[in-house]
């Protein structure tokens, strides 16, 4: 099946500053993909290009085979989009906003929306502008799901949400995508929430594509080895090979796509003594993300 989203050699500059550099990746049908990166890595730039709110300096994005800048209304009706910060019209109340959006979408299903709203402690005539950020997020999510879209793009869905609403958001998304008929692309800075949700992970680093693979493969092949710190050495980072060495006071660590023997060999090559207490440590997605993109 053709990909739902395809970015080909995407490049963008803000003035002379590069924001995206020759980035290519795809989202396959029925998959949930997480687009991750530090602040300023290029995630929102990509989302804006996908939604036709930015013209790339080079390359192109295809959604359902159509150029993101020339989407037909029929294709637009298949794409749900959550704007960063759960932006919605504050002057509407819960019923009015549903009434406004319904005529635009042929597959509109109000039940999903009202089901989500019924769980919230809000009055029917309460205006969106008077709701908490968490309540507003559920209204925005309900309106997107009611569209019955084949693709949903969530731009930083977790922004401003407390743990309860974050969990609720994840559960609703998971249930919605359970039939494997819809595709989802999301960005978030709360990476630990995504581990049990996403199928594929795309990681940006300063506008470049760092990782594009299945999450299970990333978790299985990216390793951390710790060892007792001996002697003097500095932190080391090899972006090309996704390899990082971090020096600690008592224990240091090496991260990368390499088995134990190869890690020891690399440390030897770097002149770092790692013969004492060398062992593999478990890694979460967030650990891997920080190892790949750094703390600074």
């Amino acid at each position, binding site marked *: 099946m053709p990909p739902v989203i395809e970015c080909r050699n995407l490049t963008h500059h*803000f003035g002379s500053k590069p924001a995206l550099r020759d980035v290519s990746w795809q989202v396959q049908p029925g998959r949930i993909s997480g687009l991750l990166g530090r602040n300023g890595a290029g995630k929102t730039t990509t989302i*804006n290009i996908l*939604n*036709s*709110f*930015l*013209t790339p300096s080079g390359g192109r994005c295809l959604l359902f085979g159509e150029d993101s800048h020339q989407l037909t*209304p*029929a294709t*637009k*009706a298949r*794409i749900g*989009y959550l*704007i960063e*910060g759960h*932006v*919605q*019209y*504050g*002057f*509407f109340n819960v019923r*009015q906003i549903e*009434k*406004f*959006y*319904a*005529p*635009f*979408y042929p597959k509109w299903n109000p039940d999903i929306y009202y089901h989500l709203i019924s769980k919230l402690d809000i009055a029917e005539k309460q205006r969106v502008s008077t709701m908490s950020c968490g309540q507003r997020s559920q209204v925005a999510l309900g309106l997107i799901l009611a569209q019955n879209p084949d693709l949903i793009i969530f731009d930083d869905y977790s922004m401003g949400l407390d743990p309860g609403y974050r969990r609720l958001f994840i559960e609703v998304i998971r249930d919605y995508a359970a039939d494997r008929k819809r595709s989802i692309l999301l960005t978030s800075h709360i990476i630990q929430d995504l581990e049990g949700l996403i199928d594929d992970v795309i990681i940006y680093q300063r506008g470049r594509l760092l990782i594009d693979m299945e999450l299970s493969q990333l978790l299985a092949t990216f390793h951390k080895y710790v060892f007792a710190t001996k002697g003097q050495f500095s932190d080391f980072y090899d972006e090309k090979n996704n390899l990082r060495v971090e020096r600690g006071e008592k224990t240091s660590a090496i991260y990368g796509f390499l088995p134990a023997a190869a890690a020891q060999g690399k440390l030897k090559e770097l002149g770092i003594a790692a013969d004492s207490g060398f062992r593999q440590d478990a890694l979460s997605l967030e650990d891997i993300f920080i190892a790949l993109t750094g703390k600074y």
Partner: protein
Amino acid sequence: MFKALAYKEWIKLRLYWGLMFLAHLIFCLFLCLQLRRVCMINEPLPVWQNWLFKDYLFFRPVEYGPLLLGLLFACLQFFPETVGKRLRLVLHLPLGEEPAIGAHLLVGLGLLTLAFLPGILVLVGYSAIWLPREFLVHFGYIYAPWLAGGYAAYLLAVFTLLEPTWRLRIFYFLLSASLVRLCYLPSNYDSYGRVLPWLAVLLAGLVVLPLLSAHRFGKGYGS
């Protein structure tokens, strides 16, 4: 879909529009009373004479009314769309960019016309009770450019508000001020008579400008 967009704009603007309409109506009732007083004390002839020789018109205070209404209405309608870049919600709807923005402008111009109505009614309705018909035609020549100024102010304010870059916004503001000025050149008896069709053409042309700004907004210029 137009109905849905009109519904959205009505919910957003009904309170502000109602207040604007009421304020304009009260002001026009005041003008009616003033006209009645002048005509009851004098005959219609001094009204004519005052206009011709002293450039005094009973409805001169309403001169900048349409302009203010147009400006205010554009800000009330489109400023909320620029906060948090909410316009993206409309631009993401499954209909073209031009139909979406065009529908907003149509609703805005329609509500603005209704807001102008009390002023028009005072001139063509109430004045007809007191003044000869010929007066009214010439009043129309005076009042029409002011109305055109109101519509132009609305369209040019939307054009300026939706522009995503500050540099061009400032340029658009200056350009808009110059264009609106064309509707407020010193005028007396019949001086705008021959220019009115050209003002109408200019107004029709101005409709394109907000669409241009919305397109630039949508394509992320300046971000």
